[in-house]
């Protein structure tokens, strides 16, 4: 076998092996998307009921709570960025990091100091490499987040927002995550969790917009209910964001791996054509060598006969 042909054969083998791996990863991601989507929908009854309750307290009582009123002069904001632990997901992580950077820039232009909290190794690595300060980070659960993980993430954020700004607390809480729109579309978005915008909360509960909320009797009191409710609300929003992020990441992985598999297939086709051409050239050469050799031999014997 000629040297050229051997090189082609070797490359085809290696690309085939890579293709098998990416194909497997694509299939794993596809099954995980479905699982993650199911988790998103399983968590929605709780989130909906909680949103309803928050809206009810917010509109049904005149209580002023530190978590619902905007500070006159906000000076510090916390940004929670959700990325994934692993790459191989196309532009998934860079999109959400970019969105977080834009948000940070905007907040800084408004004169606010920004504390960054990060979930996922990718985001942490990105910030560490640029030697930017991270207030706190978590990793290890981005593929399948549980409610306990969301609680763990929410705890320091709630603590920071409850602290007075002078003691290192924050006035605002923003979250940047990748919204799962459909299998094909996932968009990195940022939203403000606290202080609460009640109009926005109301809009989220969709068709119930025209519904008049009943006058609730609060047990033990409106303040206490709000006190207990808001941390849960933050946790549930973070949980939902984590789940959507996970679903988006799997969808992005699936897409990236699908195009990798397609590219590998194309590469194999091109390489096999080149290998075939090389083989054919080799055969042609061999034939002409044999013919040439035979005729030279014939010429030589014809010459010696005389």
């Amino acid at each position: 076998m000629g040297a050229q042909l051997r090189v082609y054969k070797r490359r085809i083998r290696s690309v085939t092996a890579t293709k098998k791996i990416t194909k497997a990863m694509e299939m794993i991601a596809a099954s995980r998307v479905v699982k993650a989507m199911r988790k998103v929908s399983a968590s929605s009854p709780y989130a909906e009921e909680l949103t309803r309750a928050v809206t009810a307290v917010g509109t049904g009582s005149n209580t002023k709570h530190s978590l619902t009123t905007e500070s006159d002069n906000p000076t510090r904001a916390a940004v929670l960025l959700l990325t994934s632990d692993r790459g191989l997901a196309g532009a998934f992580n860079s999109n959400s990091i970019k969105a977080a950077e834009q948000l940070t820039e905007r907040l800084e232009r408004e004169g606010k100091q920004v504390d960054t909290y990060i979930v996922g190794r990718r985001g942490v690595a990105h910030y560490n490499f640029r030697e930017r300060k991270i207030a706190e980070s978590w990793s290890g659960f981005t593929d399948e987040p549980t409610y306990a993980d969301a609680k763990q993430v929410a705890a320091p954020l709630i603590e920071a927002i409850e602290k007075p700004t002078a003691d290192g607390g924050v006035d605002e809480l923003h979250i940047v995550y990748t919204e799962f729109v459909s299998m094909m579309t996932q968009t990195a978005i940022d939203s403000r969790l606290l202080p609460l915008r009640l109009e926005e909360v109301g809009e989220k509960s969709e068709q119930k917009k025209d519904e008049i909320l009943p006058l609730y009797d609060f047990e033990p009191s409106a303040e206490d209910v709000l006190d207990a409710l808001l941390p849960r609300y933050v946790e549930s929003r973070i949980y939902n964001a984590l789940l959507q992020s996970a679903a988006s990441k799997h969808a992005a992985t699936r897409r990236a791996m699908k195009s990798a598999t397609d590219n590998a297939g194309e590469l194999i086709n091109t390489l096999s054509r080149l290998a075939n051409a090389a083989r054919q050239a080799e055969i042609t050469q061999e034939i002409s060598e044999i013919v040439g050799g035979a005729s030279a031999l014939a010429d030589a014997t014809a010459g010696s006969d005389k």
Partner: protein
Amino acid sequence: MAAELHVELVAADRKVWSGEATLVVARTTSGDIGVMPGHQPLLGVLESGPVTIRTSDGATVIAAVHGGFISFADDKLSLLAEIAELSEEIDVQRAERALERAKSKADASAERRAEVRLRAVNAH
């Protein structure tokens, strides 16, 4: 007046139980509260404890609820909890083991969780 109310018991990651009931008893921070159809709209903070739901066909559903909220309006009652389990879902041996472990470690919240689970099972 409707003689039954619609109950939704939801945990953070799933819907635990939903159906029609005639009476729901839950423990709020200011004491046990019983809700029957036609009750005044209510929003309360729940303590960890068993919740008793008397369904319209006379059966009793007991669930262990760890913190959360009760909200009632228009004969629709929702119980929100971070963790909620029906009594038949609770693994008694596991809860007992957890109770032992929590006691030896003096982990108050884990001990309370395990106790609530066992109480919910024993209430049957």
